[in-house]
């Protein structure tokens, strides 16, 4: 039911909302896909990557370069984006997955920054800081105009299909294996699961969808710029995922929506205020997003999604919904890796 209602809303949206809001919705859809793909690493494997922006950017540049430098049809370019994303993820993952937690994060940060500096420095190929245009002429007609309903439906349809594939994937044996590995890699290794190979596969799939998101972003924006690969983009995706809730499949998508919406709404709210009181025009976007990040880290370890889920369950049990109220034992909580209680308490010389 809620699924149908959601789908109905998405279909109705472009007819109700202004063109600009439709553009924002398209952006939310793309970042939702990016964040959910990121969560395959974060939530399902417990790995923090700061190189995800690079995979996103590589997808975008693949599409833009193919369209700009060759006469290849649009479809081929669109399909190449996720493939290149996956290929890059294969290389990055192969090298990075030998490393534990923090070194994994720092290594992906380093590799991502190298990719970023290549995009920035190789001006003759990528256009560098002047960005690389994806001209309207190179995109098939009905989807070539930003803010149009057809482009919106095109993006939403692809994102929905990709999310469906991801959903099926994480609810298959593969997804359960990943989660088992996250709880205890050593135990998983012990029962004969090739942990590294599974994680590499997860990394490649994550890169595939990140690349697709990057390709869509290039179509949506009509250009690509090295900033797509910058590590701060990865940090923002981390914020989206944690804000929405990493233990829920749809949590990061919710987080993406919230961050994009929040950023758009704080733009232009404060300038008059700051000009009057501080003599300068500022947006306070950093202050707002920073406060959200702190709040999530301290008060909302389960994210907004996790909180909603809890509230819904609580309401259900209060209403005495038929069958199993959560009377016995502790309420179904987060997986242990979120470390709500002593689960992550440092034991031994860690």
């Amino acid at each position, binding site marked *: 039911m809620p699924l149908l209602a959601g789908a109905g809303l998405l279909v109705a949206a472009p007819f109700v909302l*202004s*063109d*600009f809001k439709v*553009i*924002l919705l398209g*952006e939310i859809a793309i970042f939702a896909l990016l964040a959910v793909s990121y969560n395959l690493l974060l939530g399902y494997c417990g790995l923090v990557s700061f190189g995800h922006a690079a995979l996103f950017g590589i997808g975008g540049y693949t599409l833009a370069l193919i369209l700009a430098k060759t006469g290849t049809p649009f479809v081929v370019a669109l399909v190449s984006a996720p493939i290149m994303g996956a290929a890059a993820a294969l290389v990055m993952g192969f090298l990075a997955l030998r490393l534990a937690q923090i070194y994994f994060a720092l290594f992906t940060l380093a590799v991502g920054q190298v990719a970023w500096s290549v995009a*920035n*420095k190789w*001006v003759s190929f990528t256009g*560098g*800081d*002047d*960005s690389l*245009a994806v*001209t*309207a002429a190179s995109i098939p007609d009905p989807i070539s105009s*930003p*803010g149009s309903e057809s482009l919106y439906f095109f993006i939403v349809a692809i994102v929905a299909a990709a999310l469906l594939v991801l959903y099926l994937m994480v609810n298959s044996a593969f997804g359960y294996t990943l989660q088992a590995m996250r709880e205890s890699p050593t135990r998983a290794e012990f029962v004969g699961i090739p942990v590294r190979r599974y994680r590499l596969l997860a990394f490649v799939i994550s890169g595939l969808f990140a690349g697709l998101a990057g390709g869509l972003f290039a179509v949506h*924006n*009509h*250009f690509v*710029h090295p*900033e*797509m690969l910058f590590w701060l983009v990865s940090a923002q995706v981390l914020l989206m995922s944690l804000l929405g809730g990493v233990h829920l499949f749809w949590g990061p998508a919710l987080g993406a929506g919230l961050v994009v919406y929040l950023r*758009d709404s704080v*733009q*232009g709210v404060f*300038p008059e205020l700051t000009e009057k*009181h*501080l*003599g*300068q*025009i*500022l*947006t306070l*976007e950093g202050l707002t997003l920073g*406060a959200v990040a*702190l*709040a999530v880290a*301290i*008060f909302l370890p389960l994210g907004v999604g996790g909180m909603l889920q809890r509230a819904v369950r609580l309401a259900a049990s209060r209403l005495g919904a038929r069958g199993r109220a959560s009377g016995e034992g502790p309420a179904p909580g987060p997986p242990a890796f979120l470390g709500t209680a002593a689960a992550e308490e440092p034991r031994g010389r860690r």
Partner: protein
Amino acid sequence: MALKRCLMLFLMVLALSLGALSLTACGGDPTPMVIEVEKVVERTVEVEKEVVVVATPTPAAPAGPPIKVGVLYGLSSIAAVYTQGAVKGHNLAVSEINAAGGVLGRPMELAVRETHLSPTVAVRETQSLVLEEEVDFLMGTISSGVAQAVSEFAKENRIIFIDSLAQSSTTTANLGHRYVFRSATDTVISGRAVATVMAERPETKYVTIGPDYAFGHDAVNDFMGKLQELKPEVEVVAELWPPMLNPDFTPFITAILEEKPDAVYASMWGGDQINFIKQAIPFGFFDQTTLVAYNMDLDILKAVGAEMPEGIVAGSGFPWYSLDTPAAQKFTTDYFNATGEQPMIGALQGYTATLVLAAAIEKAGTTETEAVADALEDLTIDTPTGRITIRAFDHQADPMIWVGSSVQSEELPFPILTDLVPVSGSDVILSIAEVEARRAGQ
């Protein structure tokens, strides 16, 4: 428990903000302001009197729906020193225009947006301005990447975009199109103006250093191309490309000194240029070689302050402290009265862009895009630094550049450029043949 934490967090944020506000309230820069003002005002009193005499009776207040203009800048971080002033320049121009009866009898209105120096954010904000605010025109941008992204948007959506600050020549030359115009100097005018002065001087052995992105490379190439054309014996013994926002220039400074060049051309801007100069001083850099800077306006002059070595050769788009023309002094005074600040280069450029747009709309007699675009081509107006023309072929304006060398001022509390050589933008602007060649190369 959670409540307690919530309270603590809230208190923390509150304390931080209060601290910030109290710091600003104490006035970060208490010392020299008053003296400077008196100087500026003193020197402009006579001019002002004249203006008052000439002033016409108050015109009718503008009526009708406003002409809305979207303004896009990176308002914080490294660009703030240019863009905060630019917005004030835009505002000053708009209030003058509206006080004088508006444009086509209608008031002009600005909608300012922050780009965070990001092309992606800039395009999203542009879409918001055009679709939500329904602005008729676009102005602004700093950083060539953002300018290029907004320019592409303007091209696809057929909306006029006047680039008021960003300098990379690519925007109008290589990638120029019907809807993009630039009212400011570009890297060619600024670079070549300095080159014409350096061609008269004896230095031949050069090292160049510039930030490693489009603008930095354009600025170095545009300078060196002209210099070598005017003076073929000039040789470049090394090219250095530090990243933008580089905090430590020591290794670059020591490397340059080993080359023993006659002169060093530096195209860094803002904080990078300040870092380079201040860190180079104690190495005896300025006793061993001559620094030639892309430009040096108040932002750098003030920040380096009393340490500024004498004899740095640099261009400036608005050395108001030495310009005796009534137009320049009037702008300086008006701007000071409106904002309490001395105008930096951004203020002039924002002001000029607004005047250009208003004049074009007046000339076209309509706000319709194609008519205004036609009106902008070959438009000539008077600005605080003199008359400029927007060339019809590539939509590039030709403002003046002054080239001088640094000296500690006896009158003003900051160093200035002296022995200014005015270079007319029309003398050094890319020729139409050059623009055609660049466009063919794309």
